[in-house]
Every structure is written in C-alpha cells, then in structure tokens.
C-alpha cells in the first residue's frame, strides 16, 4: 500500500466531512465542537471505507480524478477546521492569493495541454524545469510578505518529494481542474458582490 494510495483517502474524507457540515448548518444544526466534529469525521470515515464491489467508496472519487492538488486539499481542510473549531489556516489575503494562483496556473497549463499550440507545459522539459524555479521564487516572495499561501506551496513541494499523489509530475501537486474552476468562480464572485 503506497503513500499515494493512503493519501488518496484524505480529499474524499475532507470533502464528505465538509458536505455534512454544510448540510447540518442548512438544517439549522451546529457543527462546532470536539464531540460533534469527531462524530461527523468518524461517520465520514466509515462511509468512505465501506467497500462497494471490493473498492472503498472513497476510491470512486479517485476514478474521476486521482490527483487533487495540495492547495485545494488545504483549502478544504481550512473550511472543515473553520466550521469545527473556528480556526483558520488561511486568512482572507491567502485565500485571495490561492484563487489568483489557481486561475493563472490553470490558464497556463490546461489549454496548452489539451492541444492549443504545440508547446505542452506539462511535459516540455525547459518549461517543466522552470516551474520549480518560478514556484520557489513565488514561495519565497509570499513568505517574505507573510502570506500563508507560501506555506501551502511548501506543502506542495514536500508532498511532491513524498510521492503523496499518484502523478510524478509537479504540476499535479499545484493545480487540478476542480481547483481551477473553484478559483475562477471565487474570483468572479468577488468581482461581482452586488449582483443578486
């Protein structure tokens, strides 16, 4: 059982826990506190470990996407913590940075990877090597600015070295299609606060 296999349960767990929290809040129920959080988390874990046709339920989400990016995982974790213990990992500034990062990374990667043009940043050696340098520079800049998203980027490179995702490509640690869409929606909603 590899590290990537075990780590693959984290995102579905966080997602289900967050969805349960949102569902309870929509029913007027409280979601904070240790006991409630433990019950919600335990119930989520049990559901996700139940096998269907020999495959744990959590792994059915992996069939759709095996590599949920580290920033999206951290954002989801931040949401769970916020509603469970009123603790924030990411402040407003770092959330804003994460949205910009997700959109920029997605725009740089996906159109080209899907065939627009002849340069594929996912695999072109020079671009790929440059990715480490650019992300390192961005990390240092964000840390100097005391922006917590810099720590998220450190988590990305650490996860890459620990092979926590199925992919050996650093791009997958930085961005995924769901993160890109969520970041885009977040940026667009932020720009239109007064629309009904």
């Amino acid at each position, binding site marked *: 059982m590899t590290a990537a296999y075990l780590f693959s349960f984290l995102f579905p767990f966080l997602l289900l826990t967050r969805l349960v929290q949102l569902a309870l809040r929509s029913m007027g129920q409280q979601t904070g506190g240790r006991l409630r959080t433990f019950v919600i988390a335990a119930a989520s874990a049990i559901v996700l470990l139940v096998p269907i046709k020999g495959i744990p339920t959590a792994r059915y989400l992996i069939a759709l996407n095996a590599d949920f990016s580290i920033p999206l995982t951290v954002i989801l974790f931040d949401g769970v913590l916020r509603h469970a213990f009123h603790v924030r990992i990411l402040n407003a500034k770092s959330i804003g940075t994460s949205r910009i990062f997700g959109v920029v990374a997605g725009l740089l990667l996906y159109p080209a990877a899907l065939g627009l043009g002849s340069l594929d940043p*996912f695999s072109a050696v020079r671009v790929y090597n440059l990715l480490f340098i650019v992300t390192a520079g961005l990390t240092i800049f964000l840390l100097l600015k005391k922006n917590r998203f810099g720590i998220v980027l450190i988590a990305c490179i650490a996860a890459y070295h620990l092979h926590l995702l199925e992919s050996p*490509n650093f791009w997958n640690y930085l961005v995924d299609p769901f993160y890109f869409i969520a970041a885009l929606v977040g940026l667009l909603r932020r720009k239109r606060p007064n629309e009904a």
Partner: protein
Amino acid sequence: MSVVLYGWGFFKEKSRARPDSFNFITYRSGPAPKQQRPFYEESFITPDGADGKKPIQVHVASLAELANGMLAAVWYGGVYEGSGDTRIFLSTREPGKERWSPPSPIMGRERASRQLGRYIKKVGNPLIFARENRLLLLFVTVSVGGWSGSSLNIAVSHDRGISWTPARRLTLSPFLNVSTLCRNNPLPLSNGAFAVPIYHECLGSFSEMLWLTPKNREGDVFTYCKNRMTRGKAYIQPTVAALGTGKAIVVYRNFDDNRTMKVAFSTDFGQTWSPPQATNLPNPNSGLNALPLSDNRILLAFNDSQINRENLSLATSSSSVSIDDSSGGFGKTDVFKWNRIAKIEDHQGEEFSYPYLLRTQDNRIHLVYTWRRQRIKLVSFNEAWLNSKAASSAVAPEEAP
C-alpha cells in the same frame, strides 16, 4: 527549507536520463532479401467460433517476440467495442510451432479495478512489446465516458504471459489524466528504454511520444515522460519507423478533410518532429502501421481507401528513406510517393483494419489485423516475397495530389 526542497526537485528532474541521449535500435541484419526464397503464409490466431462458444467482436491486435523466439499476440474482445464485458486476450506461439495457444484473458474491468484500486468501466487498446524475456503490456482503461476518457496503464510479465505484475497507472495528462491512448509499435532504445508513440483524443487530437525508462533491475517499474509530435485536431495513432542514429519517420492516421496519409520526420532522437506533409496514399480515418525494411524503404500496411476499411493493402516508399542532416528534411528522398505492392484483403461490406507489423529474428515480417471484427488474422511473409510482388506489380507510382 523551501529553497532546499525546490532545488532538490529541480536537480532531480535535470539529472533524469534524457531520452535524446539514447539511440533507437534499428533493423537487425540477417540474410539479405536476395538470398531468401519468397515466403508467404496466412493463418488465424483466434478460433473460428465453431466450438459453439458465444461469438465476440475482436479488435486492435498487437504482436511481440521474446528473445527465445516465442510470439505473443494480444487483442481485446467483447460483445461490442467498448462493452463492459470486454477483456484483453493473450495467445502465444512457441518457436517452430504452427498452432497458437487458446486465447487467455489477461485483463478485464474487474481485474483492472482491483489492481488500480478504482472503478473501471472498460478496457481496450492493448499494446504488447518485449525486451529479452519480459513481456510488457500497455493498455487503456476508461472510468468515465467513452474512449476520450482513456488512461494508460502498464503491466509486465516475467513468465511469458502466464502471470503479470499489478497494473500501474501512468499520469500523462493534467486534465483528469484522460484521453491518452496507445496503438502502434514502441521503439526499443539502446539504454533499455522504449519510445512509445501515443495520442491524445479529446478537445484536440494530436500525437505524442512516451518515453518509458525502467528504473529497477527487474524492469517492471518505470519512470516516464513525453513530448508533443503534432498539434491540432487531425493526427492520431502515429506509427514510427527508426532509420538510424537519432532519425525516424512517422506516418499519421489522419482525419482532416483531405483524407490522405501524412508523414513527418525527426532528426533529434524523436524530440522534435517536422510538420506533417501529405503523401499520395489515402487514409479513411483508420489505423495503419509502418516498418522499416532492410534497405531503409518503409513498408506500410493500410486501408487503401478514403471512405472505408473494406480492403487491406501493403505499400512501400518509392525509394530508401534518408533524412538530410544539413537541411533537416527528406533531402532527395521522396516519401510522398508510395508504391502499392499487394492487396491482402478486399471484400465489399467487410472490415479489415488496424494492421500491426512486426519483424522477427528469423527475418520474417508478420502482419496481424482485425478480420471482419470476428477474428485476428496473421499474415507472414519476407522481403523476398515483397520484392517479387513489387516486380510483378503493374501499379506504377502515382503522383502526389
């Protein structure tokens, strides 16, 4: 700490053996064609269904030869293309024997689900190749949607196909890792690696080269990377023929409006490829396969039609292919005119498709293909037979459009 982590990642990638450091292994010399007697033989790999078992559709066969001369063929079969009951079958033939072993299922959706730890809807497009006494199998799985939702996986056998290592997923696209498929012959490299022509078929349709490098002694764990061969929406299922030090020619399945086969070349070990150029041969948006001959002509198996797969033919380039280092082009070689050599199949209303060529150690050339979607057929011949057909052929080279 972040500088250390990023620096480590940067240098780890930089230090990885680059594919362009290693040469393609090209044609092995043997008895010259002039010294051979023409040989031609037809047979079927799959049974004819007369045993009363439920007939299934079969498709996308490939062939490999182990170091001891054993041949191994794989294909997929099911009630219909892409059905949930589709499995990948293997059949082998020992050296010196005429009969193939009964088809044995080696991969299906249930087994792929268990090994990959996720839901698999269907399997397909098996590609078998060999290195010494190892058999390697690349195959496609789909979890969601149709063939555009394909992902590539690899398994290895050390015992001639009896058992296989658990399938491993290859991550080749950042967008949900979908739409990557394989079809045609990998090229062995001098460092033990393989250059596998693959293709992407989703919003765009383009060809890529996958570089598979074994990273353990057993040769069943791989590092991999890829590079783009074409852009756009028309070139898939590349078939590559290595011509010499760092040089190769590729022929593409092409489904643009022209419906003609297109070729391109590389002079840098497959790192970059010229833009595709039209030939005088048609392509009805169907699979094709190329193989270099002993004199560096290229042998092509293809459907000689712009509209259907009712015939299967062989053609050769009009002359030996040489790639000019100085101009970076084909030089005096005209790869845009091909000579039709032989018609292997021709029957109205039937399908003969997805040819796959392999040269074996005894210098014979084997062609496997889908025969009417009912059986996998094998045609074996040698260059002496090809040359005799070329000499007796009344078809003159046609002008390029």
